[in-house]
């Protein structure tokens, strides 16, 4: 057995793995630590303080950030909800709709937003809204976000649904449940982990988006990423570290929830 393990392992690979984890986390940790810096300079360390967190909420730029946060979270919530509903319906057709001619094309269309480079999608969406004379603002951001959130909501839902045998629905329908009842009472509860993790991923993707939002947002409206970008362009300030740390924490919490939800198996 030990000889077998020797064949498998390579010296140095463990070190590189630890290095990889270190590289991935070090910049995030550094920003987190410096967000608690008492100094007004981002360079000098003057001890622990929460002043920049206070500054985010009541400081001179707080009104701007609050409005941006309200925009970001409402867009992310609405876009993720609609995208998840659309993706659930689409996954039902793809996984439970038998084999049909439009299946491959539909799958291609659903995954199109992840295939096309983000900057290209941003340009295309801007040109589209401009050519139909749609004023840029909250609605254009929302519509663009719904579209590119669909594949992110779709993939976990499809993966989950493929793991559920159709015997459950058929058993329900043998007992005179309608197709809708079988879906609502049997399939949907079984799919719930996939639906929740699809929703959370779509929510994070929407909350994170900078490039597409920046193109379609118009002049008067900001989301958190565009507000942060605008601020960073004028120089790194400690309050940006504090906002970043809060957003970072939120992403970590949501991905962790998504991870545990998708791991939970309620088909047994």
């Amino acid at each position: 057995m030990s000889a077998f393990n020797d064949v498998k392992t390579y010296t140095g690979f463990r070190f590189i793995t630890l290095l990889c984890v270190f590289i991935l986390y070090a910049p995030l940790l550094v920003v987190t630590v410096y967000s608690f810096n008492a100094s007004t300079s981002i360079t000098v360390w003057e001890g622990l303080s929460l002043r920049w967190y206070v500054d985010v909420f009541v400081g001179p730029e707080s009104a701007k950030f609050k409005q941006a946060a309200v925009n970001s979270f409402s867009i992310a919530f609405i876009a993720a909800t609609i995208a998840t509903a659309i993706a659930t319906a689409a996954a039902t057709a793809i996984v439970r709709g038998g084999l049909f001619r439009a299946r491959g094309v539909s799958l291609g269309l659903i995954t199109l937003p992840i295939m096309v480079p983000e900057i290209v999608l941003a340009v295309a969406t801007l040109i589209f809204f401009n050519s139909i004379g749609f004023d840029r603002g909250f609605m254009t951001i929302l519509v663009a976000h719904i579209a590119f959130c669909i594949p992110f909501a779709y993939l976990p839902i499809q993966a989950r649904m493929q793991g559920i045998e159709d015997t459950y629905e058929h058993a329900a329908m043998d007992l005179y449940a309608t197709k809708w009842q079988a879906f609502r009472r049997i399939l949907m509860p079984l799919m719930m982990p996939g639906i929740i993790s699809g929703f959370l991923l779509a929510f994070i993707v929407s909350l994170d988006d900078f490039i597409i939002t920046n193109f379609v947002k118009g002049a008067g409206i900001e989301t958190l990423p565009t507000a942060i970008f605008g601020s960073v362009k004028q120089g790194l300030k400690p309050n940006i570290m504090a906002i970043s740390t809060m957003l970072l924490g939120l992403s970590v919490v949501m991905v962790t929830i998504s991870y545990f939800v998708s791991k939970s198996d309620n088909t047994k």
Partner: protein
Amino acid sequence: MAGGAPSGGSSASDTYAPTRHWLLAPSWFVLGFFTLAPILIMLVYSFLTKEFRGGVIWEPTLAAYDQFFFDRGLFGDADPTLQWTYISIFWRSIWQAGVATILSLLIGFPTAYFIATRPEKSRALWVFLITIPYWVNLLIRTVSMKFLMRDEGPLNDFLMNIGLIDAPLHMINTNFAVQMGLFYSYLPFMVLPIYASVERYNFTMSEAAADLYASKFQTLRRIVLPAVKPGVIAGCILVFVPSLGAFLAPDLLGGAKNFMIGSLIEEQFKGNAGNWPFGAAASMILLTMVMTILLVFAGQQRRAGQDT
């Protein structure tokens, strides 16, 4: 067809076949209208005449593509010569994305291999650990790289403290910073597909190679690598493609001198250049490059799938 027979959730399940078109209609509508149609309109725009305040005049012309490839002098009447400005921006993007891909592969392959050879229980946790940073806002991750690599930043402090350097290294606004930023942004994309391949790899093949006196390096190169090649290629594509069109890393870490495709395109719509047809044409060229890479890859995967 499949009827009541248990089909293991395979694609032949057809419980909802009669309503499938209604179920797909919302996604067709949203993605057709707000993703596919815009790309087609962008294609049309790339053949229109530019309007000086941004926007277009509806007169078909090849001017945008011509401007991309040829220089016709200040007044447009000189003999066309190859225009290197934009080609070199594309070339730099390919180079930067390539360096980021190779760096990711050098770190990502051993990591993926190591994780795949852990006991089954701890693998999921390792994968989760690698995935988390990907879900953190890309802008925030790029800003933290900027913070880290500044002249007075923590990285320079650290290097000076351990005595490796005497004066701060100038890293920000260099090609190196952009490469590091791209590498950092997309590293998780390299690890995950390679991990999936190595996990399926049958390690008795390594054992057989060792029995036949292959050195460990020979085993890795001749046995493991060919077996996990699809995962390695997938990882390279997942790093290379988004790096090619990246905007944040070149913009925040590279500064004005290290322009990449993303910045060139952005400037046509946001900046002062304001040439929409040209921006649409550059986007189409980028899209064509990316789609070609993806199609070649898909064809390869299909052939690999048929072999096994």
